Each structure stands twice: as structure tokens, then as C-alpha cells.
């Protein structure tokens, strides 16, 4: 049976400090009016009462990451010749991400299929992934923008987490999900959790009930392909979109990047930074041709990738964890659920006309 513990609310900070001796701890806290993940600082505390504004994506996939450093070395004997000195920059610390939600932790399993389990293994991703532990807080209740239950998950889904925390009277019930998660529970601040099991189970059941009815998205892959060429549909769907990309940068399952050399004189760094399919530059080709010239093409890709192309490549798994951030933080209220459902319904309507 999985190892279970209990921690009193008042002991959580002490636990984080203890974890901080071995790992770098990321925890959400208020900054301005937003809740974002920052290296844990006891004097600033943490805030886990609500889903964070931005997910802890940067823990494993930093907004910008130095892949290597380079410098050109001039050969004084032979000025024509320049030697290139390159140093790789693999990350080597370990991290604990505390207080993310099940959707946040599950999000990285979408990355894994691409960066770890595909034809090529991404060394940078791997280094961070293997050294990052997730202590995740189960949700007691979904929000109006949450739809994790539509995509095969739920408010207490342990997928991708190492430890699942469930809020119970006076503190949290802690459940080791992975072996390495169990190693995080080896602290004198934690008490035995068996007596809280029943209460935690009840919280989970209630949370599941708080979610609206799940929609059946099994037809989404084929239906999205079916409407692929109907640009009129996509223009209508994307009319209000600003093509800004906020949705992708806040998305726990968006993993696209750009690589640039940032040089200063004869030396510099090669960095990988977030990029996104909502940006027109994303598919701009060197010839000047852009296969996704309008926001309609771009939004179509965003939805299509998550709900059609990715599932087609990865055993039907939808590349969206249903966290709802793209809905609640979109400046103009684009609702990805509507986009998917209208693709599903669209064809049905067409068929009815036949």
C-alpha cells in the first residue's frame, strides 16, 4: 500500500524549508495581483488556496534556457582562422515543485512523450525532468473554467505527481504516488496518515462531483481533421482572438520553443526560449512564405494539435490537461472548449444537411 502521511497546516513552511536543504523548492505565491511559482522564500510565504495564474511550467521548461555558451577565439598567428569554444550547460540541480494542481503535474506527461519517449531524447529536458519532484495539491472543487474531467483526468488525478496532497481538517493528507515521492515523506514533521485516509477519500469523491458533466471528446481528432479545410469556420471561430499567445505561455501542455544565438561581441549563448503557434513568426519560413498567415490558421493549429494531431500520434491522449487557464486568462475570452465542441458539432450539422 502506498505510503500515507499527514502534515499539520502550521508545519508546511517548516517542511518546505527542510526540503529546501536538498532541493530548490518552487512554490506559488502572490506577486502583484497574480499567483506565480517562485523559489520558496519563507519570508514571503506561499499561496495554494487557488490554482496559480501561471503553471509551474518553467520548472522543467524554462521561459528561456541557456543550452550552451560559445566564444570565438582568434588565432593571432593566423588571423583568418577562428576557433570556436563551446561549453554545454546542462542543468544539474534538483527541484521540488510544491502546490501545483493535478492538471499542472499531469501536463508534463504530455511533454514526456515528445521530449523523452520519442525518437530523440532532449538532454536538457531529461536532466530537469528526472530531478524534479511534484508535491501536488488535489482540488476540492473545480472552477467554471476547469474541464480536467473531459480529458480523462480529474481533481485528484495523481498522474505525473510524486506526492499527492489532499486537504483535510487541520492540514493535508499526503500520499506517495511514486517511489521517489516516498523519499520526500521521510520527515519528522509528518505524522502517520492512516487515520485520515477516509476523510481524504471523501474529499476526492466530493471534488469529482463538483465537476460538471464530462463531454465526450473521443470524436475530436477525426472531426477536427474533417473541418481542417473549412477556413470560413476557423475565421469565425478565431474572429475575436488577438493571436497574442498568452494562452500558450500559460498552458501546462504547450511545449514549443525557439532557438536563438544571443551574442555580445565574440562570445554569446545559445538559448532556447518559449515560442508559440499563435505568433505569426512561428511558421515564417526563410523564403518569406508563411504557411499560417492568419490568426485563423494559427488558432486552428492550437486546437488541432492538442485535440487531434497529438492524440493521433500518442495513443489517443489529448494534449490538454483541462486546467482552463487559456480560458480565464485570455484577454478576450476565447474558450477552447467551445472550439472543440463546435468542431465536433459542425460535421454533425453538415451530415444532417445531406
Amino acid at each position, binding site marked *: 500500500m502506498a505510503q500515507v502521511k499527514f502534515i499539520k497546516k502550521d508545519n508546511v513552511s517548516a517542511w518546505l524549508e527542510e526540503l529546501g536543504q536538498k532541493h530548490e523548492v518552487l512554490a506559488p505565491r502572490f*506577486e*502583484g*495581483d*497574480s499567483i*506565480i511559482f517562485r523559489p520558496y522564500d519563507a519570508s514571503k510565504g506561499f499561496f495554494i*488556496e*487557488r*490554482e496559480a*495564474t*501561471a503553471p509551474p511550467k518553467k520548472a522543467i521548461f*524554462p*521561459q*528561456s534556457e541557456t543550452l550552451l555558451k560559445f566564444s570565438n577565439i582568434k588565432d593571432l598567428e593566423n588571423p583568418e582562422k577562428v576557433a570556436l569554444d563551446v561549453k554545454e550547460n546542462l542543468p544539474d540541480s534538483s527541484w521540488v515543485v510544491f502546490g501545483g494542481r493535478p492538471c499542472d503535474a499531469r501536463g508534463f506527461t504530455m511533454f514526456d512523450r515528445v521530449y523523452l519517449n520519442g525518437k530523440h531524447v532532449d538532454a536538457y529536458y531529461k536532466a530537469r525532468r528526472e530531478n524534479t519532484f511534484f508535491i501536488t495539491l488535489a482540488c476540492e*472543487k*473545480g*472552477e*467554471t*473554467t*476547469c474541464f480536467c474531467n473531459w480529458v480523462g483526468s480529474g481533481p485528484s488525478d495523481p498522474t505525473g505527481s510524486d506526492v499527492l496532497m489532499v486537504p483535510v481538517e487541520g492540514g493535508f493528507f499526503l500520499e506517495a504516488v511514486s517511489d521517489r515521492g516516498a523519499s520526500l515523506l521521510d520527515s519528522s514533521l509528518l505524522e502517520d496518515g492512516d487515520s485520515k485516509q477516509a476523510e481524504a477519500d471523501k474529499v476526492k469523491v466530493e471534488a469529482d462531483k463538483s465537476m460538471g458533466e464530462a463531454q465526450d471528446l473521443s470524436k475530436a481528432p477525426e472531426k477536427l481533421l474533417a473541418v481542417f479545410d473549412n477556413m470560413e469556420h476557423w475565421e*469565425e471561430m478565431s*474572429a*475575436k482572438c*488577438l*493571436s*497574442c*499567445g*498568452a494562452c*500558450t*505561455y*500559460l498552458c501546462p501542455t504547450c511545449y514549443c520553443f*525557439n532557438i*536563438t544565438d*544571443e551574442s555580445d561581441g565574440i562570445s554569446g549563448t545559445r*538559448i532556447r*526560449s*518559449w515560442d*508559440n503557434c499563435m*505568433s*505569426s*513568426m512561428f511558421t515564417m519560413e526563410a523564403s518569406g512564405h508563411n504557411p499560417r498567415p492568419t*490568426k485563423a490558421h494559427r488558432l486552428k493549429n492550437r486546437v488541432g494539435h492538442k485535440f487531434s494531431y497529438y492524440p493521433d500520434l500518442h495513443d489517443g491522449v489529448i494534449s490538454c490537461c483541462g486546467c482552463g487557464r487559456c*480560458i*480565464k*486568462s485570455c*484577454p*478576450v*475570452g*476565447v*474558450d477552447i472548449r467551445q472550439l472543440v465542441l463546435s468542431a465536433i458539432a459542425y460535421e454533425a450539422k453538415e451530415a444532417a444537411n445531406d
Partner: protein
Amino acid sequence: MKNLEDLKEQIRKALPELDVVIGWTDSFDPLHATPHFMRKEEDIDKLKVDALCVHNLATYLPGLKGKKVGIVVKGCDSRSVVELLQENLIKREDVTIFGFGCNGVVDQTKIRSIIGDVGNIEACELTDKEVTVTASGEVHKLALDEVLSDKCKTCRYPNAVLSDHFTGEEVATTATFEDGYKDLEEFEAKSTEEKFAYWLGEMDRCIRCYACRNACPMCVCRDHCVAQSRDPHWLSQEAHVRDKWMFQVIHAYHLTGRCTECGECQRACPVDIPILLFKKKFNKEIKEVFNYEAGLDPEATPPLLTFKNEEAKIKERDW
């Protein structure tokens, strides 16, 4: 909106001649509205206009070039339309402006910081004085004044400054230019170090999504923005606060004397960075130097888009 039916009627009459009319409608919860593109008669039924209709729809106009577009505007939004006309970014004969007298819109960030958990909004009722929000079974009565956008508290142009159709009564206002810059003056009183530290702190959480840029009706480079151009590579792609801040400086400079202070840049920011303050600084200077305000006169040219040998208020020859 009291005269919503009148507005709908105006739109109904105009729609046959237009490709689309842009307004607002209900969104994912009762506390939000969303832009609404009306193409068919039945779309008009879903139109809503109230204090939740925060979006400045003028942002969409340059992207709809060549189409006949109707647009519903608040006073401040109408200034963006005027500014777009001034800069020849849209054609007067292509836009049909449905204006009205505006009583202000809410600031969702303020509501969120008062209520806290806005994840489960069940109902929202608006009156002239109050916003009543039911969230997770709890009823919150908020004074409208407390949650009104700052721009609305000092609004000098609540009525569309240009319109083809105007709905309802004009709204009176007594605010002055100076009223709108009190926050800036307070900020300017700080030391340079304090100001710098403030911006470093705020900009640090920027995710470089550029929602601020894309939401801005006057930000028309968009796809060719210096922030992302690869050749030349003006800004580094690092997540360094230096580059994030640099972008805001560039944005503000590009908007100097063109920005109508609609506040969309700040509203769009997913991590609530108060970037409007920055834009206001430049506008205050423009007013000071050129006695000019953006988006009021369709025939005028913004001061930094023109060149005069001698500016009325800058006495070059006296130096």
C-alpha cells in the same frame, strides 16, 4: 444599458449593408463578457452592453481592412477609432460607428482582489451603484465605485467622440485632464531608485506573451514587431527583466502621442503588470510639450508623426 433595444434596432437596420458588426456578449461566467461578431440577424439578440463590456473593440478594425464593419464603442473606444482614422489605418467609409454614453466598466483585477476566489461565479447583477456577485454560494455586494476601472473614474470622454449612430442620452462629466494623472504624479514623486526597483519587480514576472501589444488598437506592427524580429535581432529572447522592460519602453515610445489610454494593454496582461502607468507618463509629456491629446480630432496628425520646423511650444530659436 437602458437603451439596448434601440441600439439593437440601429444595428438591425445597418447590418444588411455590413459584413459584420462587433459588440459584446456573455462569456464563460456571469462576471465576464466577450467580444461578439454579429453577422446574422439572430446574432444581434445576443448583444449585451454593460459594465462588464470592457474590451476595446477598435483593436479588431485594422485586421478587417477591406470589409464593411460596424463597431459598438464606448467613449474611450471611440478615441481609438478616431486615432486609427487619423493614421489612415482604416477608412472612414468602411466603418459604421455605434456610439453611446458610457457609465464606466469594471476592473476585473479589482474584483478579484476583493472577492478572492472568482473561480465559481454563479451570478452577477449590475446597477448604477453596485455590482452583486454570487461566488461559491456567497453573495458579495461591491460598490461600483470601488471596482470601476481607474480610467473611468476620471473619464472626460464618456460619450463617443465620433459616431454614425448614437444611443441614449449623453453622459455628463466634470473630470479634468489633471484628474487622470494623479497616480502618475504620486509615482513620479518617488526617487529614481525606488521607481527603478518598482519596475524591475513588476516586469520580472512578464512572460513575454505580448498580449499587451496585440490587445492594443494602436499597436499595428504586430507581426513585424521588434520584440520578435529575427533579422535584425533587436531584443534578446532571454527571460531577463532587462529585455522585458526594454520592450515596454519601446511600446510606450511607439505609442507616444498615439495612445488613447484605453488601458487594453494592462487589462490583457495575464499577470497583471501595471503597464498603463508607463504609457500615461508619455502622454502627459505630450500634453505638456504639444498640448495634444490622441484620438479626438480625425483630421489631426499626432505630433510625433509630423514634422514642423518650429513647434509652437518648443522655442528652439531661443536657445
